[in-house]
């Protein structure tokens, strides 16, 4: 049952179209129950009590009636890895021994982690850039749960969390951004520094720091106390807007100053994806990044943007094994990954340079 949700192609009819630069929006709320120690300090029996209280509280909620709940230790190693690769749960939660759980909706738009670092981590995700609907959704879920559970809360400090960095709103709002222009023009370190000054954190989503695989970054608020949720979102939003501008500027400048080299890279990326027979996930991510970039330039049909986004996830090691239906060793994985990419890019056209 759970396996089938993970295996399902993301989508459904209402899936918004993939847009340039911003891949997805996420809000995470950290909450704890009154009168129970935080998970890091709790006995297994206390964690079990929290888990069942939370699941009970969620059973009647409208937004969750199409969801399933599982205990983490009932999941196979592979299912846990899949959840991590889809950014639905943290690597930390995937490693816990006992007393932790996950509530996941069928459309994978909400995933609630129970007994991670805090009792509850309510997460709502959506493709594209859309904080207002994501916040509304997360806020409703939170209020629904709170109608049945007493939260640990202090009038002055707000929601009490295991780590003081999450205190107050307990909210981490983030977007996944595709920033190949800033990476290729070697501006990423500068941007990270500037943005950090504004209380905004940037980290590579796959890999580390400014050399993130696929040039994909997660941008989020660092501070959670002393501002309302809407003020935090507003500040983050204005930073994002300026990041998008800078990224677009960097792209245009690359196309002007170093046109042939850039076109060569994008063109070869498509060639590699059509012809590879062995490929590691890091290289695949970088090729897919160039496909997404070419699509944004209007040199590839629109549908390749969504395909690149899907492949970013499906080339991860767990997903390759999921589609193979069994655990396989890394070299065989590289072969299967190449096959997957070849099949998807079989009919991909050459770059259309007519408008450039």
């Amino acid at each position, binding site marked *: 049952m759970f396996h089938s949700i993970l295996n399902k192609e993301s989508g459904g009819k209402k899936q918004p179209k993939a847009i340039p630069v911003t891949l997805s929006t996420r809000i995470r709320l950290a909450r704890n129950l*009154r009168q129970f120690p935080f998970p890091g300090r709790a006995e297994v029996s206390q964690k079990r009590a929290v888990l069942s209280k939370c699941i009970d509280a969620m059973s009647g909620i409208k937004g969750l009636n199409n969801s399933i709940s599982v205990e983490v230790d009932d999941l196979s190693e592979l299912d846990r890895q899949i959840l991590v690769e889809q950014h639905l749960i943290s690597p930390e939660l995937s490693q816990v021994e006992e007393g932790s759980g996950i509530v996941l909706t069928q459309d994978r738009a909400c995933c609630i982690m129970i007994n991670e670092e805090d009792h509850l981590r309510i997460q709502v995700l959506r493709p594209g850039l859309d904080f207002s609907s994501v916040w509304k959704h997360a806020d409703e879920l939170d209020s629904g749960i709170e*109608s049945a559970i007493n939260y640990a809360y202090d009038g002055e400090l707000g929601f009490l969390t*295991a780590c003081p*960095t999450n205190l*107050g709103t307990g909210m981490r709002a983030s977007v996944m951004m595709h920033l190949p222009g800033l990476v290729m023009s070697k501006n990423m370190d500068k941007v990270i520094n500037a943005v950090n000054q504004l209380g905004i954190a940037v980290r590579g989503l796959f890999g580390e720091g400014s050399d993130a695989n696929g040039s994909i970054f997660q941008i989020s608020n660092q*501070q959670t*106390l*002393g501002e*309302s949720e809407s003020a935090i979102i507003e500040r983050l939003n204005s930073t994002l807007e300026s990041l998008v501008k800078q990224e677009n500027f960097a792209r245009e400048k690359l196309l002007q100053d170093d046109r042939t080299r850039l076109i060569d890279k994008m063109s070869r990326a498509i060639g590699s994806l059509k012809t590879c027979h062995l490929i590691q996930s890091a290289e695949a991510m970088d090729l897919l990044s160039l496909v997404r970039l070419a699509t944004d330039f209007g040199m590839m049909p629109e549908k390749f943007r969504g395909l690149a986004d899907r492949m970013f996830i499906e080339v991860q090691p767990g997903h390759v094994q999921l589609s193979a239906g069994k655990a396989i060793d890394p070299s065989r994985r590289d072969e299967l990954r190449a096959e997957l990419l070849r099949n998807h890019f079989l009919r991909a056209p050459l770059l259309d340079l007519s408008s450039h």
Partner: protein
Amino acid sequence: MKCHHCDNQSTVHLTQILNGQMHKMDLCEGCAQAKGVTNPENLSISNLMDKVELEVDSNAASMVCESCGTTHQEFKKGGRLGCEACYHVFRPVLDPLLDGMHAGTKHLGKVPAGSESRIQFEQSIHSLKKDLQDAVEKEDYEKAAELRDKLRDLENQTKATA
């Protein structure tokens, strides 16, 4: 950790409470010898007061949350608190940290209205029950009857909304 007296690695760690304040000192083997603290019977920081400048670490080092057992050391090391009561216990060391960590030190976000009112309700039931008990003990039956009515009203109120 470096020796309090020179740059060597410290191997001798002294802790003593003087006038309710925690004093800590870390010394290397050599300095410990020189100060004559290697003999456990002689181990008294007060003897060293005039010789070595002491680091006074307020009362922080001895802080411990009675509710969950988290110590100040653990908090300093892992950066995590263990329960909601920790926020009261460690508040003095937490406040200066929050100042640098966040945009402000006062919560301006969402208020969990349900939790707040339920907690307030529990507290008023609790205090009414306590007052009632006091009234009965003092044989103030008029007051007791009045409190009993209030309690009944409050409890009916929840049944109606539940």
